[in-house]
């Protein structure tokens, strides 16, 4: 697991914004009662302003506490505060702006749920909602999530190894890749019904891993974070977490896992193959056309003045566990 020694410059728990102040930030905005220059015309930045007129969230998704084995390293880590983990999400199914998924997903239904594991295997199965949290012993894994947009968070996930699940279905010799699919439900996921809200990507969202990447013990199927089941904006009821790859590989709200023989198409690669590769391993030496990947802003607590730019590590710091998977491969070509 990731070990991080706190620096003297790191912020302490006591500096975290009290939750009630954070939750009331909209009232603060409202109290001021005006629109910004950024809201003079319809545009992405003005959506916040428009929100001020809509009703406050009526429903909040209910998460439930989970039983799990705590991560042994948890004391050494500065975690990203829970309210940041759950309000800063790239989940275009619920809106392409960071704060939208938390706002537009609260009535999402996760029970009943069906997750099918099929394809090149001897023993295909379908899991129901309850199976997701009861089939395997759950453990906490604190991973750094590195987004391709050059920011990162430390998140205490709860889940089980994908390998454990794959062993259950017994992959056959043709199973070379694993293909994942997110739920397609435009009624519940407004981004799938509206191009502007959904950021213009193709739905359903699909992702893939090579079988050895999928079987690596680091690769996690997560059903919770911060001790509770996942909220919808983080990919409820079950999502992938591949900590050495950019965040877009970690597909959310999965309904299908399929063992396949050919390298599958993946959502962002289809949209812009020169920007997003199939492998998408965190690599400070290979820049994204839009961003330098040599460093990142590590989001913890702290406002605009937080000095949080840190060096990006090869494989996001997990090289010891995964670098051998890519021996002999030109990682600049297979980005």
């Amino acid at each position, binding site marked *: 697991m990731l070990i991080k020694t706190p620096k003297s410059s790191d912020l302490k728990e006591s500096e975290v914004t009290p939750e009630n102040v954070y939750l009331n930030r909209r009232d603060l905005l409202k109290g001021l009662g*005006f629109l910004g220059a*950024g809201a003079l*015309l319809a545009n992405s*930045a003005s959506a916040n302003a428009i929100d001020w007129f809509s009703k406050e969230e009526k429903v909040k998704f209910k998460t439930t506490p989970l039983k799990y084995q705590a991560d042994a390293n948890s004391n050494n880590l500065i975690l990203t505060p829970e309210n940041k983990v759950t309000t800063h999400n790239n989940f275009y199914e619920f809106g392409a702006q960071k704060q939208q998924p938390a706002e537009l997903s609260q009535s999402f239904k996760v029970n009943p749920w069906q997750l099918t594991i099929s394809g090149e295997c001897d023993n295909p199965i379908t899991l129901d909602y309850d199976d997701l949290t009861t089939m395997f012993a759950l453990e906490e894994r604190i991973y750094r999530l590195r987004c391709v947009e050059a920011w990162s968070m430390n998140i205490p996930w709860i889940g089980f190894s994908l390998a454990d699940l794959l062993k259950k279905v017994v992959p056959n010799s043709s199973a070379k890749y694993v293909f994942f699919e997110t739920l397609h439900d435009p009624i519940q996921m407004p981004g799938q019904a509206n191009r502007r809200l959904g950021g213009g990507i193709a739905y359903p969202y699909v992702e893939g891993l090579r079988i050895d990447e999928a079987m690596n013990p680091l690769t996690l199927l997560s059903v919770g974070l911060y001790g509770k089941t996942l909220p919808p904006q983080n990919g409820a009821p079950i999502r992938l977490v591949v900590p050495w790859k950019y965040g877009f590989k970690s597909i959310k709200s999965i309904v299908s896992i399929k063992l396949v023989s050919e390298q599958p198409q993946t959502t962002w690669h289809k949209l*812009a193959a020169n920007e997003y590769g199939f492998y998408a391993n965190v690599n400070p030496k290979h820049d994204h056309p839009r961003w330098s990947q040599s460093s990142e802003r590590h989001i913890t607590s702290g406002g605009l003045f937080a*000095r949080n*730019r840190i060096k990006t590590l090869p494989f996001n710091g997990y090289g010891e566990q995964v670098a051998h998977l890519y021996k002999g491969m030109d990682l600049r070509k297979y980005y």
Partner: protein
Amino acid sequence: MNKKISTAKKVLMLKVVIHLVAFLPLFNLYYLAFNDLLGADPVERVIHFTGIGAFNLLLVTLTISPIAKKFKQGYLLQVRRLLGLYAFSYAFMHVLNFLAFDLQFAWWLFFNEIVKRPYITIGMLAFVLVAALAITSLNSLKRKMGKSWQNLHNFSYLIVVLVATHFYWSVKSELISPLFYFLLTMVLLGFRYKKIKALLGSLFSKKLN
């Protein structure tokens, strides 16, 4: 019957409104951002807000003269400089946010990004031009510059095209908003079709000579 409001009063009122609408949101934005009340990543929010705000103000500035002409409201031209200066201020904060809060004064990375990323290159070029217009908006300089002042300020048409392209190239996937802005830009430039044609014409004839 109704009392006529003097032109000076109208201009003053308009200026007060512009100050309120342009300055207060900026004040509000930074108050929230400094206190970590602006979502999980205030850096992204302040960059986007000031960027789109600068573009909006630039477009409003370019709307003034067509409206003044069409509705014969000449006094409107007297608030154009203020709007332009606010557009510059927003653009300045946009660049400063990127340098100070996103890159956290990693100067080498800053210059590297300007050279390497086409959308930042043209954004920076637009900013330098806007800064030149802002500086030369001083009355004393304007008088000194004579005819070349107008030549310089005609660059506002190039600036708005650069900014529209900067926005279009900067987004990851959703292209509807940047295309909408491009359309607005073209409409505003369309009002100046003859002038721009003449400007381009003189540019080419100079080259030929």
